């Protein structure tokens, strides 16, 4: 398991990411209607999905932390929140870059855009709460509650294009039920990009979790140094 996390995972992430870039820029054909700008979706959509997975991880780990009270779950929740924020920020950056040529505007208060921004703000608050709360379990417990409540927004974002009148495209499953990626090469490219971001998510989560573990070990040593002096 350790060998997988330390050597195989970074190597696999690198190889699959290079393959994803090759497929996005060389292999896949351009969309007939949108042209070359549609290729933003191959990173934008997997980033969004992995952002939701990250915030979902925050919620599950927070529940387990509140239930069991062990630091392992709290560290996982905190790490997943930070990685999720990076992914969600990239979604909110790449989305408007696509929207400008496609819609003629950088931003519109569309249901999906607005609910995604709300998700970003909720977890920004979560990270702020973590950074201002001192040592001890109280801050972690408040943050865990926020992490669980915040995840309620994820299914709302997912269903927003079906519940409200929205101009955001439904890429994977269209409003009529079919897929938005009709060409098999587009589907293959999307699959590889999704795998690349899944591996990247695991890698970032592992590295961030390791730094929280080191921080805890350091706090313990400080405590030992204080009691021995």
């Amino acid at each position, binding site marked *: 398991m350790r060998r997988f996390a330390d050597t195989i995972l970074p190597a696999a992430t690198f190889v699959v990411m290079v393959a994803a870039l090759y497929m996005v820029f060389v292999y896949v054909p351009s969309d007939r209607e949108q*042209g*070359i*700008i549609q*290729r*933003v979706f191959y*990173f*934008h959509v997997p*980033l969004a999905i992995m952002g939701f997975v990250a915030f979902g991880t925050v919620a599950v780990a927070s529940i387990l932390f509140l239930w069991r009270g062990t630091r392992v779950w709290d560290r996982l929740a905190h790490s997943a929140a930070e990685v999720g924020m*990076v992914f969600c*920020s*990239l979604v909110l*950056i*790449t989305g408007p*870059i*696509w929207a*400008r*040529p496609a819609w003629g505007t950088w931003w519109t208060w569309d249901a999906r855009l607005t609910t995604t921004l709300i998700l970003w703000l909720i977890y920004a608050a979560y990270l702020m709460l973590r950074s201002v709360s001192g040592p001890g379990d109280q801050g972690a417990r408040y943050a865990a509650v926020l992490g669980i409540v915040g995840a309620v927004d994820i299914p709302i974002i997912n269903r927003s294009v079906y519940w409200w009148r929205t101009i955001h495209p439904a890429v994977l499953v269209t409003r009529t039920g079919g897929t938005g990626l009709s060409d098999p090469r587009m589907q293959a490219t999307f699959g590889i990009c999704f795998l690349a971001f899944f591996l*990247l998510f695991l890698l*970032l989560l592992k*590295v*961030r979790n*390791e*730094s929280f573990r*080191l*921080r805890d*070990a*350091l706090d313990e*040593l*400080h405590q*030992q*140094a204080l009691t*021995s*002096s």
Partner: protein
Amino acid sequence: MANLSYLFAAYTAVWVLLFLYILGLSRRNRSLEKEIEELRELLRRKT
């Protein structure tokens, strides 16, 4: 090839932000490891 600059901007943003985040993470981990090693050495000398 219209909108190529937007495509370039989107992918550059992704790579720059990810690179900065990974760089920050590895720096933070290195400094924590160094600090732990120093503290362990200090405790060893004390006992």
